[in-house]
């Protein structure tokens, strides 16, 4: 009798414990999920649905037979129009059976016209509020429609992740604008600082980074573009680049290429009697990697010094060109001078940070560039 009761008890216990063994009832196969890799934000002509939003989803479904490279695109673009981004994202559920996951988002492309029409913090609001989307995706601008850029058919690549890998090249060129994460964009927007977003263009079947767009801090809107030469100047001024090339000419217009190994930029702000000035000091080291001049004497100390002088002049010219555009045309500090000013004059900055861009536009600049050539290559002419 006693044993019987024990058995019944054990039996009940087993049944109850089955409830805990739920296993993977809630699982979803990776093939049945849609991973969002890229977002594109455009505006549409329709007033009722002002936002045109493109969602790029990586194809996880295998097309064709096993073992064979999948034919066709690796991605799927869904372009929808609506009033809010969240609504558009949810509308995807009307046409795609698989749930959308945004935690692998890599790139957000914003059409520059849309960015000049809308406050950027509005456009990115959904992404910043969302609990799944990370803050690491990159934000880029484009003159063309973002949906077009996302639909670039590169063999075996998904355009948005292809685009985000291009920015790893900042060790080879100074013409590339530094990549900007959503997190940084939000930081700049909330502190009303101006900043720069890389600009991408599509030429036939190629995506390319070409210059950058300036976002003005106060309006939080796009105001204009910088060419890749001007971006080079920004990189020199802000120390954002890693390494790259500097092309310059000698008196006879022969092209000489100086490869910057590393460089340092020091910004010394001065603020006296309401007059703001910056002293920009640059020190660079590098090699001569190409020299078209026929009269080159690579080993002569005088010749190397002459080249150093020419290179320094070129850097100064680049920076002056950039600053002219930033101060006169855009009145936007995208080179991070506010940081050095905040560090040196914290009290004054507290009062000035609201109208920083205006102060920046009126600032005087002095340059001191020191270029060192430490190697002239493997050739003796």
């Amino acid at each position, binding site marked *: 009798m006693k044993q019987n009761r024990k058995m019944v008890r054990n039996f009940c216990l087993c049944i109850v414990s089955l409830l805990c063994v739920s296993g993977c009832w809630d699982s979803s196969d990776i093939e049945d999920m849609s991973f969002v890799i890229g977002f594109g934000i455009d505006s549409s002509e329709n007033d009722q649905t002002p936002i045109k939003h493109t969602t790029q989803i990586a194809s996880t479904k295998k097309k064709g037979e096993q073992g064979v490279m999948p034919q066709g695109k690796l991605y799927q673009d869904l372009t929808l129009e609506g009033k809010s981004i969240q609504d558009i994202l949810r509308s995807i559920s009307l046409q795609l059976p698989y749930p959308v996951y945004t935690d692998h988002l890599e790139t957000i492309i914003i059409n520059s016209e849309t960015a000049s029409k809308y406050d950027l913090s509005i456009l990115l609001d959904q992404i910043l509020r969302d*609990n799944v989307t*990370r*803050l*690491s995706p990159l934000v880029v601008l484009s003159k063309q429609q973002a949906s077009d850029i996302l639909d670039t058919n590169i063999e075996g690549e998904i355009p948005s992740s292809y685009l985000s890998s291009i920015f790893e090249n900042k060790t080879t060129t100074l013409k590339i604008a530094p990549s900007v*994460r959503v*997190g940084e964009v*939000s*930081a700049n927007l*909330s*502190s009303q600082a101006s900043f720069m977003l890389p600009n991408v263009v599509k030429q036939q079947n190629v995506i390319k980074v070409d210059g950058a767009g300036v976002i003005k801090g106060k309006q939080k809107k796009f105001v204009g573009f910088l060419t890749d030469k001007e971006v080079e100047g920004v990189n020199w001024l802000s120390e954002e680049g890693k390494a790259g090339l500097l092309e310059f000419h000698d008196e006879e217009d022969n092209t000489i290429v100086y490869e910057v190994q590393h460089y340092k930029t020091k910004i010394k702000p001065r603020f006296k009697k309401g007059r703001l000035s910056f002293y920009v000091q640059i020190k660079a080291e590098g090699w001569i990697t190409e020299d078209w001049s026929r009269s080159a004497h690579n080993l002569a100390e005088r010749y190397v010094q002459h080249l150093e002088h020419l290179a320094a002049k070129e850097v100064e010219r680049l920076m002056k060109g950039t600053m002219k555009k930033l101060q006169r045309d855009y009145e936007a500090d995208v080179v991070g001078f506010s*940081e*050095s000013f*905040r*560090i*040196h004059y*914290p*009290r004054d900055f*507290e009062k000035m940070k609201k109208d920083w861009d205006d102060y920046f536009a009126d600032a005087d600049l002095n340059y001191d560039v020191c270029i060192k050539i430490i190697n002239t290559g493997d050739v003796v002419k």
Partner: protein
Amino acid sequence: MKMGTTRITTIQMVALLSSALIAVGIFTLPRDLAMKVGTPDLWICVILGGICGYLSSLIIVSLSLRFERLTFFEFNKLIIGKWLGTILSICFIGYALLIGAFEIRSMGELTQFYLLEETPISVILITMYWVAIYLLIGGINPIARLIELLNPICILIFILVFCLGFKVFELDNLRPLFGLGAGPILKGMTPTFLTFSGLEFLLVFIAMMQKPKDAKKVALIGLGIPVFIYLLAVVIITGGLSVERMKHQKWPTFALIQEYEYEGILFERFDSLFLVVWLIQMFTTYVVCQYVAAKGISQLTRISYKKANYVLLAAVYIICLIPQDLNQLEKMGTIIGWTSFAFSFFIPSILLIIAVIRRLKHEAEPQNGP
């Protein structure tokens, strides 16, 4: 109960204290500081807060050492009489419950926001309670052992996750030092001191130490570890996000971890790892709080420690569902902070002064056995 099983070693005590101190502050402190201070000097507040915490823990230690082998619930009667002492004890129990409920609720909210979006919060809370009650029934020893085991791993992972944040670190965000003078730093003292609430539990635990003489050492190391972790967190978050950004981010700590990605090492993203470790810390803090409350009840009344635990479980569950939303939860945190100030500094110092004036002292009877 056998002798020796209710005593805890010095190392266990260090782990216990530091676990109780590392809690929801990891998530809330950076933003609180950024809002209050507003300059990059906020890390100095953490150090100053730590020093203040150590000073008040010294008061607690010297008070506890005057009454050997007696917990706060027992010796306060000796100092200020039975009635006042009982009222004080009840307040202390209520306060411990409040912290416990607060920690477990914050844990539930964050878990729901980042991990289990569709799970009802009560399910998250109740599973935690069940695990906790299983541990709590065993008394202080299993709790101390578990914490001793988990604490070093948690600390290592905290350090790892924060140090990986150096990828987005910019020193300029931490400059200038004392840019706007010392004024803002003083403003930041309150949130930091409030973060170190939990110190007052020493009032109960010193009585259980095998070597109460080590209590000062325990306070130093047990406080030093959390201060270091908070300091690391605040420095790296400030460097990575900038002060301006910390103000606008609901949970800056998580924002920092979400901002970097690594390729090539075991994990690419560290949010889940960090959350898991943090959950463990929240759990241990909750267990410590509930233990203190249950112990208090069992020493005040005739209810046994075990029964008290079950009763308190219901109480904590009800308290933790009082705040309707995150803002109210935050208000609850502030109230806790101020009560903590009373219990870790104000009350111990008054008790100590009275005890010194009245020359009260209590010596434990010599122990039998090992």
